[in-house]
């Protein structure tokens, strides 16, 4: 029981990170019907931006005011990653919109290879590890000499994720931009006819997706304290799994899917085999797509002749 509770805490933490990335996949798929293969690498780039910002701030301010540093790092990472994803959409995806269906997919795969190799060339191939940013644990209770702890890092991840999800939910459901996004999702031509700037809306979708990925990237850096140029692919596929599990196109589905994937992964590692934890996540992906293609919260896809 205590092991289970501890894994529940760890799983939700990991799942929050996956959920934040998954929103990016699900939004982009919803609006332009494309699997943005480079999104995992955008997440990786964001954690490197956070790393640079963190090192810079610590050398300027010292490590005493860690809360301020973390906040600034988060904002910096969100800004720069948004810029990166905006540019990627503009250069690599927009010229291919409405063209042959596989073209954007190949372009995205190329972008993914480019981004990971760009980071490898500019920052070096070795793992980058930093001393822990925040320390401290809350022992919730102890049973059979097994303390169930919630670390400060985990608490920060929970709070930041929850706050950002509320902001994001407000943005999508209550603002003009959110309305324009939902309109483009339903029918781009019609949305354009009633005065929605489709290009701008799609650009903003990529910016929001990148900002959320940057939050995930910063949290990832803070939680694990180590990043590498190759860290984009596996979290990316897992987040995509989360988006599929939740029902692609559904925003609450992406978050719940993310938490489920995080839980499945940690539980699998704890009770079965840590070597095969990725197999568990990938199997969930395959099983969901085969037996429940519309996911938990998605709309079934009706095929018309």
């Amino acid at each position, binding site marked *: 029981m205590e092991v289970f509770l501890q894994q529940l805490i760890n799983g939700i933490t990991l799942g929050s990170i996956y959920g934040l990335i998954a929103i990016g996949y699900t939004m982009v798929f919803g609006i332009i019907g494309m699997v943005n293969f480079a999104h995992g690498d955008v997440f990786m780039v964001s954690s490197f931006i956070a790393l640079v910002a963190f090192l810079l701030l610590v050398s300027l301010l010292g490590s005493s005011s860690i809360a301020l540093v973390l906040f600034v790092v988060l904002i910096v990472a969100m800004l720069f990653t948004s810029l990166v994803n905006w540019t990627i959409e503009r250069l690599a995806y927009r010229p291919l919109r409405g063209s042959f269906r596989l073209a954007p997919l*190949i372009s995205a795969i190329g972008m993914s290879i480019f981004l990971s190799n760009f980071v490898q060339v500019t920052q070096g191939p070795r793992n980058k590890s930093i001393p822990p940013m925040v320390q401290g644990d809350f022992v919730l209770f102890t049973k059979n000499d097994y303390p169930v702890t919630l670390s400060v890092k985990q608490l920060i991840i929970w709070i930041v994720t929850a706050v950002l999800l509320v902001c994001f939910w407000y943005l999508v459901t209550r603002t003009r931009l959110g309305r324009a996004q939902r309109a483009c999702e339903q029918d781009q031509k019609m949305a354009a006819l009633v005065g929605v700037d489709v290009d701008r809306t799609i650009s903003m979708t990529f910016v929001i997706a990148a900002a959320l990925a940057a939050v995930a990237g910063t949290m990832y850096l803070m939680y694990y304290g180590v990043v590498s140029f190759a860290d984009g692919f596996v979290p990316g596929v897992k987040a995509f799994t989360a988006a599929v599990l939740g029902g692609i196109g559904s925003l609450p589905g992406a978050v719940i899917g993310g938490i489920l994937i995080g839980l499945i992964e940690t539980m699998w590692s704890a009770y079965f085999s840590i070597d095969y934890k990725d197999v568990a996540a*990938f199997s969930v992906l395959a099983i969901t797509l085969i037996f429940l293609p519309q996911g938990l919260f998605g709309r079934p896809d009706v095929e018309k002749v």
Partner: protein
Amino acid sequence: MASGAPAKRVDAVRALRDAGVTALLTFGLFLPLIGFQTVTDVRNDLILNTRWPLLFAVVALVGFSRLAYSFAIEPWLQNRALKPAVEPAAWRGKVARWIIPFAIGFVVAYPAIVLATAGFGRSVKWIDNFGIQVLIYVMLGWGLNIVVGLAGLLDLGYVAFYAVGAYSYALLAKTFGFSFWILLPLAGTLASFWGILLGFPVLRLRGDYLAIVTLAFGEIIRIVLINWVDLTNGYAGITSIPRPTFFGIPFNADDDGFAAVFGLEYSPIYRTIFLYYLILALAFLTAFVTLRLRRLPVGRAWEALREDEIACRSLGINTTNTKLTAFAMGAMFAGFAGSFFAARQGFISPDSFTFLESATILSIVVLGGMGSQIGVAIAAVVMIGGTEIMRELDFLKLVFGSTFDPTQYRMLLFGLAMVLIMIWRPRGLITTRQPSVVLKERKAIASDLVKEGHG
């Protein structure tokens, strides 16, 4: 619009403003990752170095490129758009007719050409790194072309079957000592068996979903290869895999070796040339079988499936069998290529079968123009040969200093090339198709008319 209308004058203010904005954007993009470098200092702590000169060089380069685009390339493009389309010159048709025989002649004569120009000692590298390497990808591209180009099933886990072929050969050859020639068909059979096995659950999926599930299967197979240490030796891989023999004559320096039997001086070049012709024959086999299959009912069913699955079903075509045969055929050729790969390397490990390989093979198929065999071959030469040639550009060290290593930019440029080729030609390099059924006269059709299939 009148064809003689003068092009618009270049608006210098606008051009400058655009260049400024682009430079500013580039500065913002590259500030964190080029402007700063994270390095480990003597105490093993991570610290930041700044690289301002490099950052400003990149920004200036991009800004000036944008300026050049506004002043030179944009007016040129506009002028070209105003001119009436030029009829393709007559010589183009002649070139197109002779290009395939010429290419076949060239690849057959390639080892001789290399031997004549590069000399005996250096030609191993050129035949091995360029010839064999490119031909493996040509073969893999042609194999995947059956699945993606003909049947329209988007497969991102193709490397799994390549791995099955390689491990089948390596394990069976090491454990039972079977020869390459027995194991080649066996590896192909095993791989196509896996193709059917993995094809079954995904029959209902289409398009991007199919791509993602096949990606997941590819990764699962790789993770199993890493973790099933008893069978596969994990990350360490399998070493000293038996090499193929020339009808029972091994390529070694012994008395009964190839060189001794034919009265030649021993050299590793004979094995390399033999392997070159082996993979050439396998690649031609793939191309030939594909060409013939397109004329069989099953091949016609594949292409019909790609065009419209529902119409296919209503015409009584068994889509299950059609999809599974496509998977099995594609997987079989990957299995052949895999066992050749294991035999050529003598060493395999899970590192050779990553997602990047699948992505490379799929991109070769799409960049070449789906369904076009000559296009796939050209794409393989450009993408694989191009990145291999990056290893040879030592003269760049003279330009950029001795610490400059062109090889580390290989995959960076590879990814960039994928994006640029897609933007330049979204339909791939070769955009015409030869239909396999014709009415009266044989003519090529534009690939815009070919559907990409739902998967």
